[in-house]
């Protein structure tokens, strides 16, 4: 079947196309060149005057894994505000802060997203992450496996094992957990909390192992680079949410010594201690550091006002923040000598000085970082806000008048502490397309996604241009997933099941000797039962695995 999308205005930064009218042809799920000679169009969509982008990719969203399901279980009253009935096409479920899996897929697709990546896959909980993501329709998915607080890794560091041993372990874990990236959360801090340490600075030692977050970051970033994994080490830094942590973040950037590193939800790590409330914006310093260190990429983790729930692997910091829980209930867990988690409901209020300034800090960061290829649009769903608020966030970025109107309503002291009103920048459609499509695909290392040139999978979103960017981005005219029309006028019209993206870096099989001994002595599961097999993802008849090339692979 040959489909033609005719006459749309195309924004495809991957091919350098910035708002040019052109036709797109789709065959067998992929974008193809215009066929030569005589050909028959089976289906044509007239897109004259419409805006065409590839399907959006959320490179950091908590959509699969145990802490998300704890968050769901914790908040029945939130679900009751947003029940979702079944239709002849869609399953029922719940929405708002932490939607059910099916509703997650529908609502992402209804905003023009066709892929989402879970950033905190605990190796021991990876099965659950994949099972939950396996129940998310339409979206492609993948996960970054969490390392850095697991005892096996810390024992390797303490035993002064060489980088190759670390690399083998990282690669083996990526295979076993079916990951496309590696994340570290509060490096070593989750582990330190188990030894009753309540904070861990960049150069502070773990009480048992004697290693510091700086050591951990360096070793893991090196491993990711040497293994050829496209996505740089994904870092949730030390001291999340602590006033003054901007210095920690700047030190982290300097300390990585030029290695590729992605700093996630950097808004939560950009706080100074100035002003009457000893809480101030460090966004300008962070943006300057990002602008001048090309090895660094970031996503923002914007907060938006309203009820949400924070779900993190960082049980140390989540425990420290439990007094802010709203409603007042929260969960932390220590998990399997592997990691941990903390779930704390939050209500961000525009009349709270701190929350209002957090909002401004996120926006300052977006607007002061120059290169849209190195900054990504996230709310750290659901931690800063549910992903359904992205169209609102896009309007804040693209519409200075709107932004300043909202700014004028927040806590007055926060207004005084931000430079936001004076920042004139408005994001362009092309820059939005870079942040949410081409840049994200490049950052994760997705082959054949995030672009509209021939050879790419036909993940395509079509919008009606509208000066109200929120209205424009919350209701696409059409969304195609692998060439299948799945959304019309912002509603799901058919279901397609996406693939699971992974990489498979090489490792020396002898790595399993040490691991088997460790599993037998200390863990609660046999090594053979730990490793996730391909059929666990494919046996339901819907799932599939897509292996992406490593840096240095010959395409």
């Amino acid at each position: 079947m040959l489909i033609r999308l005719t006459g749309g205005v195309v924004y495809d930064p991957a091919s350098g196309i910035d708002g040019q009218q052109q036709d797109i042809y789709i065959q067998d799920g992929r974008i193809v060149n215009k066929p030569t000679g005589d050909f028959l169009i089976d289906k044509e969509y007239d897109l004259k005057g419409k805006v065409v982008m590839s399907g959006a990719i959320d490179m950091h969203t908590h959509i699969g894994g145990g802490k998300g399901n704890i968050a769901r279980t914790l908040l029945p009253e939130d679900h009751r505000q947003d029940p979702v009935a079944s239709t002849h096409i869609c399953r029922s479920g719940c929405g708002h802060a932490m939607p059910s899996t099916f509703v997650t897929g529908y609502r992402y697709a209804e905003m023009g997203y066709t892929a989402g990546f879970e950033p905190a896959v605990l190796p021991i909980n990876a099965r659950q992450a994949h099972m939950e993501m396996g129940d998310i329709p339409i979206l492609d998915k993948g996960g970054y496996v969490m390392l850095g607080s697991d005892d096996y890794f810390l024992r390797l560091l303490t035993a002064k094992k060489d980088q190759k041993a670390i690399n083998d372990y990282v690669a083996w874990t990526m295979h076993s957990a079916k990951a496309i990236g590696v994340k570290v959360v509060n490096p070593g801090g989750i582990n330190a909390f188990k030894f009753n340490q309540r904070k861990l600075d960049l150069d502070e030692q773990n009480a048992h192992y004697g290693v510091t977050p700086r050591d951990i970051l360096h070793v893991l970033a090196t491993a990711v680079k040497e293994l050829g994994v496209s996505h740089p080490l994904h870092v949730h830094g030390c001291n999340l949410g602590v006033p003054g942590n901007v210095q920690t973040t700047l030190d982290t950037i300097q300390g990585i010594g030029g290695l590729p590193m992605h700093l996630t939800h950097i808004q939560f790590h950009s706080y100074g201690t100035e002003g009457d409330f000893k809480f101030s914006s460090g966004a300008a310093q962070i943006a300057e550091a990002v602008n001048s260190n090309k090895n660094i990429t970031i996503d923002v983790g914007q907060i938006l006002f309203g009820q949400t729930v924070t779900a993190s692997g960082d049980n140390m910091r989540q425990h420290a923040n439990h007094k802010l829980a709203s409603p007042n209930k929260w969960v932390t867990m220590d998990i399997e000598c592997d990691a941990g988690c903390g779930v704390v409901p939050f209500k961000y209020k525009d009349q709270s000085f701190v929350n209002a300034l957090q909002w401004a800090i996120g926006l300052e960061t977006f607007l002061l970082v120059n290169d849209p290829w190195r900054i990504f649009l996230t709310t750290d769903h659901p931690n800063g806000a549910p992903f359904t608020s992205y169209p609102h966030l896009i309007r804040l970025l693209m519409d200075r008048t709107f932004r300043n109107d909202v700014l004028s309503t927040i806590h007055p002291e926060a207004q005084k502490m931000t430079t936001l009103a004076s920042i004139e920048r408005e994001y362009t459609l092309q820059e939005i397309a870079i942040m949410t499509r081409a840049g994200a695909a490049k950052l994760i290392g997705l082959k054949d996604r995030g672009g509209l040139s021939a050879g790419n999978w036909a993940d395509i979103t079509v919008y009606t241009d509208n000066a109200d960017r929120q209205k424009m981005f919350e209701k696409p005219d059409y969304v195609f997933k692998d060439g299948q029309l799945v959304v019309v006028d912002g509603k799901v019209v058919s279901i397609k099941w996406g693939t699971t993206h992974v990489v498979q870096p090489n490792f020396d099989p002898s790595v399993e000797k040490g691991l088997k001994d460790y599993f037998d002595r200390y863990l609660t599961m046999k090594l053979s039962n730990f490793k996730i097999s391909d059929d666990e993802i494919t046996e339901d008849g819907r799932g599939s695995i897509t292996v992406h090339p490593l840096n240095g692979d010959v395409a």
Partner: protein
Amino acid sequence: MTDITEVPSPFCGIGTDDLTIRVDGVSLKVIENGCAVNTPAFEQAITDTSARVGGKEVSLEAAVAKAAELLKNTKQPVIGGCATDVNGMRALLALADRSGAVVDNINFTGARNNFLALQDSGWMNTTLAEVKNRCDLLLVVGTDLEAFAPRFFERYLWNKEAMFVQDTSAREVIYLGKAPSGNASTSPNGQKAQVLESATEDLPEVIAVLRALVKGLPIRATSVGGIAVADLQILAEKLKSATYGVVTWAAGALAYRQAELTVQTLSELIKDINDRNARCSGLPLAGKEGDQTANQVCGWTTGYPARTRFSRGYPEYDPFLNDTNLLLDSGEADALVWVHAFNVNAVPPVTDLPLVVVGRSGMTFSKEPDVFIPVGTPGIDHAGHAYRMDNVVAIRLKKLRDSGLPSTADVLNAIEHALREETVC
């Protein structure tokens, strides 16, 4: 005849995965690392291999068609039991969504004690590997732990080596409430567990006093529930000074009204200790025969645990009103689908309503169901996934034999498809 090693169990809840099982045709024998819970559950013989309608053997297709027909015009079907693997629960929830059923896990009334506490104030918990490597003090509340999970102590407390405990046999075990039925809690060095015994229904009072003592509040009474307050004071100090204290309970063992308040007081007590610069964690016992699996899959599919109804087209959770027995007794239910792939003794409640049973082969009934479809057991007849008690860990269940029995997912998906066709036509 083959021996299969490193077999994981969906029966005991503590994720034992070191069983060796001898397979001879369709008969199984646990030859290594069995226990009083797992061995009979694995060795249960297959009896029925054929579905029945009205007591007569029929093809699977005919039984599926009959089940769909029974469900077609119901106003409030109930799917009870809900004891199966992840794929079985996925299919079960699809069927419930299609038919507007109530979904209710067989162990929910016990688990409710935990859910109500969790959903009201939360908790700080840990998992089995942390216990194995860090725990220096285990407090067992109201539960006969070794009857619940016979190999708990052997695997997670008296393990020879631990990463952060020098001498595992020096670990301290204290029982509060119920005394242990055997000696599994006795340390390898002969140290017996301390028992502070009280009647189970006195636990609310005992735990309330313990929490007050942890917080340093004055207690005038000298004895509570038959336990000296001085002994509770010592216990409070031990909990506060432990390196990694762990408090465990089985929600279902707290069999008295409003036991959720006991779970809540325990969980808040644990939080109090962590706010006093020490570490302490809860460890709720569960995970038997698919109960955590039911709640996990229902959780991500609907947002709610597995006592949820779909009768208005969207999921609605009510931990009291969506109780199978209540719905049967009140006459609100007009059909019952019973799903239990693990235990032949877990039969449906007796009812005059149309009854479809999707059950483990070998199940017998005082009253023949309208439709009975024997299914394979996850982890024996087909591969699958089950959650352990600590909820974080899903174990990969193995297929051990070729019995030809369909899986729960096969059967429930087929009923859902048949129902969809009947509704669409």
